[in-house]
């Protein structure tokens, strides 16, 4: 009996000792932690899955990197609401070391109100249209480079093919200019058709559909609307024309292949950039980066309809098959 009494006493003592040490450890770490942790505020333009993926990736990457997500604000796509929220952030002097702006609305409002805090923007479609430059502005492009897009295109189509594109020069003129040079380099024949309103989309497609081997759908707000996207998909499928775009949503709607960034990885990439910026003493800009990881989304039903063999790229690890 005495032996048992001693054992239990020793055990209790050990347990208390461990708890004590643990608390001591924690108490030592917290100040350190509290003393080195950076605060990041995330401003999201609206609740859409793509934005959420980015944020999710960012959060995951920030874990263990001494970066803390202070708050995530949703602007709900409303300008006024957004302004109010951003103003509240600023007025309440909520301490933040870096702002991650997801989407064009958030980036626009944040850039206005926070000139002296590093801002990382992402998920801005066709960011070059907008004046998102500044000493505190860093960004990640929402689209794969034209060269990457055309490389995949070449792999699927082959060389000496005619690729058509419909675009609003006001919105996507710069992309097309770049594409012309890259197309020449990769031995494509780029057939461009300019439009000025969404009403011209259908007739423009009908004009070029017989002259092209594939349609490149650029992220142009004049070309892609709720009404036009169905028409584009129907026409191209009817004529068995492969369609290439920059968004999985359009692949889901019926396009053949999309080359888009891996949104989750974009978040991770943004977290890496955030780490870099936060470790810097001065406020600086790292420019606009290309997304590190791309994914290919393929609509197998569309492939079957138009009779395209994509076996060469289906096996790639970054390929996502739909459905």
């Amino acid at each position, binding site marked *: 009996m005495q032996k048992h009494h001693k054992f239990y006493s020793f055990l209790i003592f050990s347990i208390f000792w461990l708890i004590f040490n643990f608390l001591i450890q924690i108490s030592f770490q917290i100040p350190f932690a509290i003393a080195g942790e950076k605060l990041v505020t995330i401003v999201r333009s609206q609740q859409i899955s793509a934005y959420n993926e980015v944020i999710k990736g960012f959060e995951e990457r920030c874990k263990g990197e001494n970066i803390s997500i202070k708050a995530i604000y949703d602007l*709900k*796509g409303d300008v006024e609401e957004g302004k109010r929220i951003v103003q509240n952030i600023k007025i309440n002097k909520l301490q933040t070391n870096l702002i991650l702006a997801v989407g064009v*609305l958030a980036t626009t409002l944040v850039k206005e109100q926070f000139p002296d805090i590093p801002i990382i923007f992402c998920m801005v*479609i066709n960011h070059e249209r907008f004046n998102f430059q500044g000493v505190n502005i860093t960004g990640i492009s929402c689209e794969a480079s034209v060269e990457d897009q055309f490389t995949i295109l070449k792999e699927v189509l082959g060389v000496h093919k005619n690729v058509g594109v419909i675009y609003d020069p006001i919105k996507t003129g710069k992309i097309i200019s770049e594409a012309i040079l890259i197309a020449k380099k990769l031995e494509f024949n780029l057939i461009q058709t300019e439009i000025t309103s969404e009403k011209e989309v259908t007739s423009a497609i009908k004009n070029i559909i017989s002259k092209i081997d594939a349609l490149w759908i650029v992220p142009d707000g004049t070309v892609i*609307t709720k009404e036009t996207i169905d028409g584009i998909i129907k026409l191209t499928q009817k004529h068995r024309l492969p369609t290439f775009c920059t968004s999985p*949503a359009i692949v889901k709607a019926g396009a053949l292949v999309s080359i888009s960034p891996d949104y989750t990885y974009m978040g991770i990439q943004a977290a890496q950039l955030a780490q870099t910026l936060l470790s810097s003493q001065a406020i600086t800009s790292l420019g606009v980066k290309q997304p590190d990881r791309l994914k290919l989304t393929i609509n197998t039903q569309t492939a079957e309809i138009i009779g395209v063999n994509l076996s060469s790229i289906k096996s790639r690890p970054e390929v996502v098959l739909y459905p």
Partner: protein
Amino acid sequence: MISIRTKLILFMCLLIMIIDALSCLFLFVHVKREQEDAFKKLGMSIVTILAEDNEVKLALSHAQPAFLDAPIKRIMTFDRNDERGYWRISSSQEVIVEEKASWLNIDIKEIPVVKEFKNTDVPYTKRRWTSGGINALEPSQNPDLILINRMISEGNEFYDFSVPVYERQIFSEEAFATEILNEDKIAAEAKQRMLGYVQIGLSTHKLNKKIHDFVLHNILPMSLSIILGGLCIAFFLTRYIVLPLRRMASITLDIARGNLTHTIAVRSKDEIGQLSANFNQMTKSLEKSYTELKQEVAEHKQTEKLLQYRVKIEELVAGISANFINLAPHEVDAGINRALKAIGEFTNVDRSYVFLYSDNEKKNMDNTHEWCAEGIAPQIENLKGLPVDNFPWALKELLQFESIHVPRVADMPDIALAEKELQESQGVQSFVIVPMIYGGSLCGFLGLDSVRVEKTWTEEDIAMLKMVGEIFVNTLERKRAEERVKHHVKRLTTLHTIDKAIIGSLDLQVILRVLLEQVTAQLGVDAANVLLINRHTQKLGCAATLGFRSNAAISLYVCLKENYARRTMLERRIVYISNLSETDAPCVKLLEGEEFVVYYGIPLIAKGEVKGVLEIFNRTHLNPDQGWFGFLETMGAMAAMAIDNTSLFEGTQRSHAELTLAYDTTIEGWSRALDMRNKETKEHSHRVTEMTLKLAPALGIKEDELVHIRRGALLHDIGKMGIPDTILLKPGKLTEEEWQIMRMHPVYAYQLLSPITYLHKALDIPYCHHENWDGSGYPKGLSGEQIPLAARIFSVVDVWDALLSDRPYRSALTEDKTIEHIQLNTGKQFDPTIVKTFFRIYQ
């Protein structure tokens, strides 16, 4: 007739009106649509602005109508045309504020409130109201979820624009980002809260007025100007198009009238110009073709004329030829004259004629036939016996079978002087002559003379003359040939007559007489005689004479040792003396009184033997031809043959008579021998033969058959030579077997006599004299007329004589008994007709 221009104008007017109507309609529709679109845009703009106005959102959020004043005031400024009929702003539950224009005669409460915007696929339901109600016609939707309804109320039409008011407005770029990036759209859309509706009704009265004004001020004037312009264009265009066609029509009329020189001067570079150019070309071609055609027609007419002339010539020649086909020789001259008249009248000449050689030596020519036109003197009598050598030029041409055509006698060459003088003497101005050729030699010529005028004849005329000349020459030759044939026929007839005489008569005198008659007639000589040689004395004797004035002189002449006849006989050839008066022969002197000039002596030679001489004498010179000599020789041969035949016949006659006598004498001898053997009465065979010969002619037997009957009767019982004496000479009755043997004697007679050809015709009596009329006789059992007539006759006679004669086995019957017996057996044994005739003759 509706002209092309009128038709074109009508057509173009119609076209213009259609175009005008379509244009106006199109413009009207376009303008109306545009105005309506603008109207709709205005409505949509107004209602959208209101819907997006924050004060409106605030008003709806807090149900504060007062907040709506300012936005509404702002909106009213857009309605410059006072088109606003009503407006209404309502929340999800109630109408916050609404107002209508004073001119709108309906209760605003009646205007339906839009509530269904969530499900935009559901169209607005149409509700028909009773009088005074609102008819909702066409709901339409637009991408911005503005619902537009067209409504009519008591004639007023207006558009109702309704739009939901959302709590918040999505930023457009984010809306695009949603499109691009968000795969879940419905969730995104659901997050917008609808606060209420803004509804505005805009009247179309101003719109209609605008359209009406547009129609009045633009479309109608445009229409009128199109019509007027179109009409003017149509007018001038059709004029421009039709004018060349009119010109072409008038030129075509000219062409139809025969004027092919017109051309169309249209130079336009279109189809009309091309048509004009083609038309001009066609006119030229037509002109050329017409000219060529005219030429061709003229040539054809000329050819036709020529052909017609040729046809007439051919008809003329055919007519002449047809006339000459069946022309009798004595009508040939008349026929030629008729033909000359026909060709003279046809060729419109003054004289037509035929010249023929007048002698066989072809030294002279005669104008043998002539026709003269009225008033032209005939020349036929002046143109007889023309020496051909006097006209060497013409003769040379004619001998070369060339025609001579002289259109103008005055222009005849010097070498034709004689011909020229001859023609001029007849007053001939132009002439043409063609040779008449037969058998490759010239017979004469046919000619035409023109006296009154100079004339040129065509090739067809000369060819026609040649054809007529051929007809003439063929006819003349046919006539000569017929005459020769006639002459020959005459001579053949003569020969036949002489032949008949030779055949038909055995009298040499008769024959010689006939001969001399034919000789003198056919040879056309005055006298002829036949002298025959006596075989024994070898002296000539006068057998027949004809034509001599005195037979005595000729008899004396004949008797002279030296005369032409003897010469002929000795020389055995024809002796010809052309002029007896120039000879001194004594025999001629004897014939001085006869005044003979010509002598022919022909030897009569038969089987190489001179039988005599045929002498021909003529008191004028003779010009005999080959045919005459041939006939003379034939006469001589026939005479010789006749003489020879006569002597032969006489010899044959004698031999035949001697032979016949020998035959008959032999038969009579046999007959007597039979009688003696048969112990018949004397001369039984002779008697019955005589009786039969007497009876036979009365029963139709011909004289030349009597000799056979005679022989048959004489030999009637020659068959008994085969009967044995024991039977033949048996005094008593014969037995049946003996009668069978006896009845064989006609068969034996047949067997004996049938090998003798001479006695074939005499077999009837020996073979059948025991046949009976009723068929009960023997040897063949013939009956009726199967029995030869001679046998039937003889059987009556034989029984008559037998019954009247004594036999060894009986005495002779009386004549009455005999008659009775005969009569009894008439029809059984004897032919009734023969019995009847027998009794008629012998009683």
